[in-house]
């Protein structure tokens, strides 16, 4: 098969560009249309011009924008002059606006304003009665498309910020006619399950028409009646829906909703660090206080001069000791002892004298005795005669038949009786 008949995309887009560029009808186009999806980027205003059935992308340079006497807003009806051209890189076409005039607000926008006004009057947007969000949610109900970027944005943001939470995805249709009912069902189911402590209702950016399901009155009332706090994060920063006004909190985007729903890990870690620092500082102060008190006490007069406490007692004691000593019976005992010694000495003297006297008188008697002793007499020539151990003093005592024993001073004489002759008286 020959490839000759196949051309590149670039070639096609270039051809279309040429076709558009040379078409006189497209060189200057006048349109009456409603403005939607206005956004500004790098000096160019991008928006969509539409009617009930169709839309066309439009761009306008800031140089022209600066000359306008009004701010271009979603829902405005405008008269536009411009040139239609092809953007070859993407194969899209758009109208490059060279002049624009405001006519009035679009129908959809008017309806939006009317509903907003009505619900505001009923008090559905009253900040005072709105539920407050849990500071540390445990389970977050995420109501969004199960396939959109919004879901991933929310989950990844929550993962980064507060991974302690569980995200329960309640898939819902978030675009088109069936969207309001689908979101309402999801909200009902969240209540029925009763697990979650906060609800995020979100969808990514889109045209004002894409987001219009979030301007549904019934959905607004369900959100208002929700017993669980709600966070809406619909579209982009600039997009406002009824949902945003009635929810407990409005977030600019799905990612913003995730941020509103959760505390930041970094902040929490910092908070925990601060608490720890406080703890350390507190205990340090306590300890310093305690030490100072201890020091104060230990430095107190009573403790440093502890001995002094006893001084008066010691003095009193020593005084009493002295007096006790003075009053002690020892002195008397000593005195008596002395007297006793003197008495003893005197007694001894008397006794010795007594003994001497006795000795003297004994000696005298002994001398007498010696003088009177028979031995002494015998030494002078006297003797003693016995018969049968009986001293013979008289002649009548003598038995002539028995031997006489005569004791002399130096011995004994035995003799026979020859005769006995008594003396004349």
């Amino acid at each position: 098969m020959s490839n000759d008949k196949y051309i590149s995309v670039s070639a096609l887009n270039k051809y279309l560009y040429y076709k558009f560029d040379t078409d006189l009808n497209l060189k200057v186009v006048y349109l009456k249309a409603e403005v939607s999806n206005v956004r500004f980027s790098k000096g160019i205003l991008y928006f969509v011009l539409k009617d009930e059935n169709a839309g066309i992308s439009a761009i306008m340079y800031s140089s022209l924008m600066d000359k306008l006497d009004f701010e271009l807003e979603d829902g405005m009806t405008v008269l536009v002059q411009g040139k239609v051209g092809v953007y070859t890189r993407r194969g899209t076409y758009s109208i490059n606006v060279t002049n624009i005039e405001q006519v009035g607000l679009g129908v959809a926008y008017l309806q939006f304003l009317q509903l907003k006004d009505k619900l505001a009057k009923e008090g559905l947007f009253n900040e005072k009665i709105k539920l407050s969000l849990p500071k540390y949610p445990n389970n977050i109900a995420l109501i969004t498309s199960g396939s959109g970027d919004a879901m991933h944005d929310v989950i990844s943001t929550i993962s980064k910020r507060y991974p302690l939470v569980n995200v329960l995805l309640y898939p819902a249709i978030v675009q088109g006619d069936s969207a309001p009912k689908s979101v309402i069902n999801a909200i009902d189911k969240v209540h029925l399950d009763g697990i979650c402590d906060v609800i995020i209702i979100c969808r990514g950016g889109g045209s004002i028409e894409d987001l219009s399901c979030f301007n549904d009155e019934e959905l607004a009332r369900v959100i208002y009646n929700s017993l669980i706090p709600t966070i809406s994060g619909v579209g982009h920063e600039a997009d406002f829906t009824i949902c945003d006004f009635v929810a407990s909190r409005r977030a600019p985007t799905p990612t913003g909703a995730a941020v509103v729903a959760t505390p930041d890990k970094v902040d929490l870690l910092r908070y925990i660090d601060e608490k720890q620092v406080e703890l350390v500082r507190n205990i340090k102060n306590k300890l310093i206080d305690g030490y100072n008190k201890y020091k104060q006490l230990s430095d107190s007069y009573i403790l440093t001069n502890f001995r002094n406490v006893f001084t008066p007692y010691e003095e009193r004691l020593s005084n009493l000791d002295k007096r006790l000593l003075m009053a002690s019976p020892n002195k008397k005992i000593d005195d008596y002892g002395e007297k006793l010694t003197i008495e003893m000495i005197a007694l001894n003297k008397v006794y010795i004298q007594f003994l001497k006297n006795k000795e003297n008188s004994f000696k005298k008697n002994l001398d007498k005795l010696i003088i009177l002793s028979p031995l002494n007499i015998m030494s002078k020539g006297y003797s003693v005669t016995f018969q049968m151990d009986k001293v013979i003093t008289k002649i009548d005592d003598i038995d002539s038949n028995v031997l006489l024993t005569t004791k002399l001073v130096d011995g004994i004489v035995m003799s026979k009786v020859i005769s006995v002759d008594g003396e004349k008286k």
Partner: protein
Amino acid sequence: MNEDIKFEELLKQLDDVVKSLESGDLSLDESIKQYQKGIELSNKCRQKLETAKEVVVKKMDD
């Protein structure tokens, strides 16, 4: 310390401990006890945050 205690509860306990220490009504012994408890709590909180990698995502459609 119980693993099941929610992060918020731990954080509240930590806050209470710090407050009770700040009040200055505690004895030194009690202060030291509270301090130790506080350090445990703050470590626990930090650990909980740092070990949790990703949120658990559960699809709830029927």
